[in-house]
């Protein structure tokens, strides 16, 4: 039997993965909204709106689940992260608020006019800033410079995250989300011209992802030594890099061949592997160097209940999600009928 706290930490990373794969792509949609260009710009925007509309709020809850598991299962880690990263987290929240409300206001503002474009602008700019801040936060956690002892933050409130490595992670996250979104969007329409638009965008974003991945890896040498050590020296390092590289190359190949279904699977696998690689590299730390999964873990009574609730919740959740996605993403044919 695995220790409870390990399962809880795993559940947290699973939730974060779902947030990246689903919620992340919704942000990516906002990026492509801003960069909608050419003769089909309006159609691109409409497709993005249609794809995000019914699902973004449900996708967003994955982030809340991450936070809730963190403060229930690892309260001390939550306290340390929320204290030392107060500034980027606050900016992240402002981004989340603006993205969500501007998207909704745009959808429900009746007249198709200037103001609607204003909401669209806020929505898309917030969709760019928020992933960067999310990445900065994760980069700050990985950097090993977050300390919180006896109510004091010895490294200050700025240095742990305003550094090359976390910033690089921020842009890496943005590129990944934009890549995911472009790949998914090829499957949201039957209009081959629109598919081509997003196929091209996916390929460009994929190249940027690769470049930024290299930058993040190089910067981690000084920016996040523990993670770097894990990523280069562990027994699992080589297989992990191989698997990630294969899924990345396969995603490119599938895009090239217009095998969009396969591209989606490969892109999702790539993002998943990156997240799990990071998690493994910093294992057993939640916040390196002071807080481990074990030292931060809530007592077994809490963890047992939390895991019970997660298991029961999953039983309700996955069928519901399946239904949601089947209704809105399943039959493209029915989508076309409505025009």
């Amino acid at each position: 039997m695995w220790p409870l706290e390990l399962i809880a930490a795993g559940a947290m990373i699973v939730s974060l993965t779902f947030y990246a794969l689903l919620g992340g792509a919704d942000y990516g949609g906002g990026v492509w909204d801003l960069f909608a260009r050419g003769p089909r710009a309006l159609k691109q925007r409409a497709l993005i709106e249609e794809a995000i509309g019914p699902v973004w709020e449900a996708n967003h809850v994955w982030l809340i689940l991450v936070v809730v598991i963190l403060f229930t299962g690892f309260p001390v880690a939550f306290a340390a992260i929320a204290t030392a990263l107060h500034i980027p987290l606050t900016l992240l929240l402002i981004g989340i608020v603006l993205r969500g409300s501007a998207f909704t206001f745009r959808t429900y503002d009746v007249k198709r006019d200037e103001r609607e474009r204003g909401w669209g602008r806020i929505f898309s700019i917030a969709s760019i800033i928020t992933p960067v801040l999310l990445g900065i936060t994760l980069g700050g956690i990985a950097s090993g410079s977050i300390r919180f002892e006896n109510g004091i933050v010895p490294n200050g409130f700025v240095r742990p995250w305003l550094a090359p490595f976390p910033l690089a992670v921020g842009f890496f996250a943005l590129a990944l989300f934009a890549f995911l979104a472009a790949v998914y969007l090829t499957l949201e329409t039957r209009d081959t011209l629109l598919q081509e638009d997003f196929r091209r965008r996916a390929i460009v974003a994929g190249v940027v992802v690769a470049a930024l991945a290299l930058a993040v890896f190089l910067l981690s040498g000084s920016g996040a030594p523990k993670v770097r050590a894990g990523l280069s020296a562990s027994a699992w390092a080589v297989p992990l890099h191989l698997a990630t590289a294969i899924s990345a190359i396969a995603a490119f190949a599938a895009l090239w061949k217009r095998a969009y279904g396969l591209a989606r699977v490969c892109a999702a696998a790539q993002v998943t592997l990156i997240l799990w690689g990071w998690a493994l590299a910093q294992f057993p730390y939640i916040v390196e160097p002071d807080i481990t999964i074990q030292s931060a873990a809530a007592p077994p009574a809490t963890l047992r209940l939390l895991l019970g609730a997660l298991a029961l919740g999953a039983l309700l959740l996955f069928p519901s999600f399946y239904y949601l996605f089947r209704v809105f993403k399943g039959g493209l044919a029915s989508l076309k009928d409505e025009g």
Partner: protein
Amino acid sequence: MNDLLAARSQMAMSLAFHIVFAAIGIAMPLLMVIAEWLYLRTREDVYLELARRWAKGTAILFAVGAVSGTVLSFELGLLWPQFMGYAGAIIGMPFSLEGFAFFTEAIFLGIYLYGWKRVAPRAHLAAGAIVALSGALSGIFVVIANAWMNSPVGFQILDGKPVNIDPVAAMLNPMALSQTLHMTLAAYAATGFAVAGIHAYQLRRDRSNLFHRRALAIALTVGGAAALFQPLSGDLSARAVARQQPAKLAALEAQFKTEAGAPLRIGGIPDVERAETRYAIEIPRGLSLLAFHDPNAKVTGLDAFPRDEWPHVPIVHAAFQLMVASGTLMMAVALWGAYGFWRRRALPDGKWFLRALVLAAPAGMIAIEAGWTVTEVGRQPWIIYGIMRTAEAVTPMPGLLVPFLTFTVLYLFLSAVVVWLLFRQVAASPRGVPLASGKEAAQEEEEPEHVAA
């Protein structure tokens, strides 16, 4: 403003903002499901139009509720890290369960809002019912966490650290039942009255408009029923407070002296320096009777507590009076409406009754804000009653005035936009809609989307 005060203000402002959307998010799905259900039963198009309009309003409000709730989840740590480090393992449980309620709520709201043409009518109605149910559940779970802050149980303290944690016992804390009941009723009462007030306003000019008449009937039934029970549930709350948090009871009644047969004060200005309350109307033995159901019971006054454990008495007392006054107004209007219906067997639509409804429209939301002020300010100086002080819980982050002001400006802006959107979207009378029942309606049945294209 020092950092502690800035943190408290930011928390209070964020919650005061969120709770409006949360209350609407609990009750609005019920109204919309009732309208849709009536449509499926009667096939009167006006009900479908109503369900659709209400759904649009709900969509806007839900989004703002979701993002402001996300802010709160983070703020618990951003502002009160020591509190969360201490209490996370004890009260994380209701927050986790709340998380799953959010999932079901968001998933089925997506299906409800965007699925009019994609799922069968019954499945659509069921999706709405699930939204209504999970909205109520999410409110209940989070209020359980708050009730624990008021009456912390389910752990022991060893060397200043919580041990022997029992999260289930913590959830079943002594304030949980009264607070969740009171809050859930409050959501239905406040939303019902707010919606009824809007439609009553329109009806004053356009008495026969079927759309507004149907809307008023549904909203008034839900809001009025809840408002009738609310004072009863308030009594349950007051008695729980009397037992669990005597300092809060003393503050909300402005009771400075410990005495047997304490009077109930209506109004009055508490003078903290002199430890007396002036200009109040006193009902002899009223407080003892209400709080302990015994006219001679001894009520603990603020004099039983050291001065640094008093909450801010004037604020708590005034907020309590405001809540009870609003509750009394709403109950009176609800009784008036029930009497009118009983006499005429029809929707009461007299001029004065409609005016009263307009007047009472904001009363529920005012009572909710005031009630939470009683609960939260009345708990001070404690963040966990009797266990941890708010000052011990606050983050060491300096300059907290900046995020407080930033979020205040952001939320003021959002409020203005939401009001403007709702005004344009939902409140205006539909004109071109076929409001007849019967034949045309039966034909529409096949293609309901024609109604509100």
